[in-house]
């Protein structure tokens, strides 16, 4: 128990939490904006995976990490639009469309990986690039805090910034208002002249782009290669995190952080001689518990509101 304590209250652990939270946070924000527009984006997992591969391929081809990132974002955005096309134009069930995207991505990435790297498992034969780490001046001099907050991948800071930007977008801009009204009551929104379909398309494009950031981070920051199914359910975990912090970007951030802690814990308590299978299940178990807690909370709130009526 004492070792566990030592692990959790260490600078390394704090740093690791932010490191592993980054992809989950991007995906959580992606889930948030699509949910606000009234679409559950199950395809996040597949979008992240495709973007991760795109980042590796484009950065290897151009020898520029930034162009690689751009490639990942474009692929992510396009896949968000594809999901919108499936569900809004072809009128397929949103959940099934998401599943289709995931299936296509998990096989399709392997297919493409083999074409470019001649390996079905990992992309190490490609000389792909990694996005830079950033040392924050002044803060990195502060003991403990500096060690936790400074020296992260640039995308980690972008993910934190995105929380604020998402808040501004949703609550301080006309587009945000449109997105929320479309999600809450599409008929009412359409009656005041909002183009519901267009707004949903936009929301899903942004959602895809955010998932693209998450994917790029996986293969160009978290590690420096692409491996098959490397997102390992993070897109799904993000759906749960978003459900936990439903109404606000900040709460979603905190929820993502909880899953990040569970994930970091599973990485660092492997030294404690617990069975690795148990440790690896921690994030998934935490997700289910989180889902129950949140849903129960929402349920009791609703019941209370009804009583007051």
């Amino acid at each position, binding site marked *: 128990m004492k070792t566990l304590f030592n692990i959790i209250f260490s600078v390394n652990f704090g740093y690791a939490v932010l490191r592993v939270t980054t992809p989950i946070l991007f995906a959580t924000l992606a889930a948030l904006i699509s949910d606000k527009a009234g679409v559950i984006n199950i395809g996040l997992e597949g979008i992240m995976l495709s973007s991760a591969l795109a980042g590796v391929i484009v950065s290897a081809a151009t020898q520029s990490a930034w162009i690689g990132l751009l490639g990942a974002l474009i692929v992510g955005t396009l896949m968000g639009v594809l999901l919108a096309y499936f569900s809004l134009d*072809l009128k397929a069930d949103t959940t099934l*469309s998401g*599943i289709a995207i995931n299936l296509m991505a998990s096989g399709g990435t392997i297919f493409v990986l*083999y074409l470019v790297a001649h390996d*079905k498992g990992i992309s190490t034969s490609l000389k792909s690039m990694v996005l830079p780490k950033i040392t924050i001046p002044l803060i990195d001099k502060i003991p403990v805090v500096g060690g936790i907050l400074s020296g992260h991948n640039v995308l980690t800071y972008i993910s934190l910034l995105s929380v604020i930007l998402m808040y501004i977008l949703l609550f301080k801009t006309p587009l945000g208002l449109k997105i929320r009204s479309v999600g809450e009551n599409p008929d009412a929104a359409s009656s005041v002249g909002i183009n519901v379909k267009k707004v949903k398309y936009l929301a899903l494009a942004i959602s895809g782009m955010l998932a693209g950031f998450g994917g790029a981070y996986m293969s160009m920051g978290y590690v420096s290669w692409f491996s098959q199914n490397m997102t390992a359910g993070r897109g799904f975990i993000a759906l749960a995190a978003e459900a936990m912090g439903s109404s606000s970007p900040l709460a979603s951030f905190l929820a993502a952080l909880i899953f990040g802690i569970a994930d970091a814990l599973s990485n660092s308590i492997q030294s404690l001689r617990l069975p690795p299978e148990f440790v690896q*299940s921690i994030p998934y178990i935490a997700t*289910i518990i989180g*889902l129950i807690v949140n849903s129960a909370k929402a349920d009791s709130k609703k019941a209370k509101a009804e009583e007051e009526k």
Partner: protein
Amino acid sequence: MHKKLNFEIIRTIAAIALSLLVAFIIILAVSKEPGEAFKMLLMGPLSSVRHFGNVIEMMIPLTFTGLAVSVMFQAKQFNLGADGAFFIGAVGATIIALEMSMPPVIHPTVAIIFGGALGAITCMIPGILKNKWKANEVVSSLMLNYIMLYLGIYIIKNHLRDINAGTTVSQKFPSTAKLPKIVPNTRIHVGLIIVIALVVILYFFMYKSKHGYEIRMTGQNPMFAKYSGINVNKVIINTQILGGFIAGIGGAVEVLGMYSRFEWQTSPNYGWDGIIVAILARNNPALVPVGAFFLAYLRVGADLMSRMTDVQNEVVAIIQGIMIVLIDAESFLSYWKKKRTFKEATSKTEIASQNLKTN
């Protein structure tokens, strides 16, 4: 009603054709021998008894998971836990096969039922979580898949592992536990008979029994079901228990019929394939074997293609994705349907007006 069914069949076939066309374009783009590759994909499984046997062998687990998913989808429950249920079902069968000694016939029967029970528990959990706390079943079942995977691997590794083998595999099954093969020159096993029986039972259950009616009503219109006195919550839970049980049996049958020991290091993903099969079959148990056969045929063809030519079998993933969307897409070919309905309607009014005139 009949016309509607016809339209669904035409649309399904059109969706399949279109996704194959996309696959063909991809193959054309990446392959140096596209003709050979496409021929292997489409005709390869027919090239020998063994290869066609492979199709039937793969059809068995796909039919199980397809049935499991279609039962749950009929009640409009997007429980995606069939994959975890299938995996843990196989682990459960391995436990009984290795830890108990029983006479033949009884041994695999007990193992399969135990595997089914574990599967039932897996799919029941998201159902209970939804009923009690309104937790979204999609997310919770996805998480459970991972938990069951790790739990299963833990059990195999720590309690049933063959330490003499290089990888994490279980000890060999005793001959009493294995399901016998039934067709010479192939690995087709008794599981085929079990699954055919299950298809027949489930068809009558879904379309001719009160419980089946309740499940379908709950899926089509939960409010109506509720007001007509159906205990919707109970139906939803029971449906997921049933679905999980079928998937669990599927895992158990697969491991006892096809393997001499438990050797999966990760999920074989048959639960996910079950979703594709269920969509192809439009959730109708009687059509599930057809969907499973088609998917298995495609898979075996793709495997042969990747072995014989320069195209990788993952191209199937793209075919599957497009198929799912197009078959489920309401708008796909709806223009054509509209036109036909319009034609019928106008011809009817013409007849009616003519009748009026003659009268």
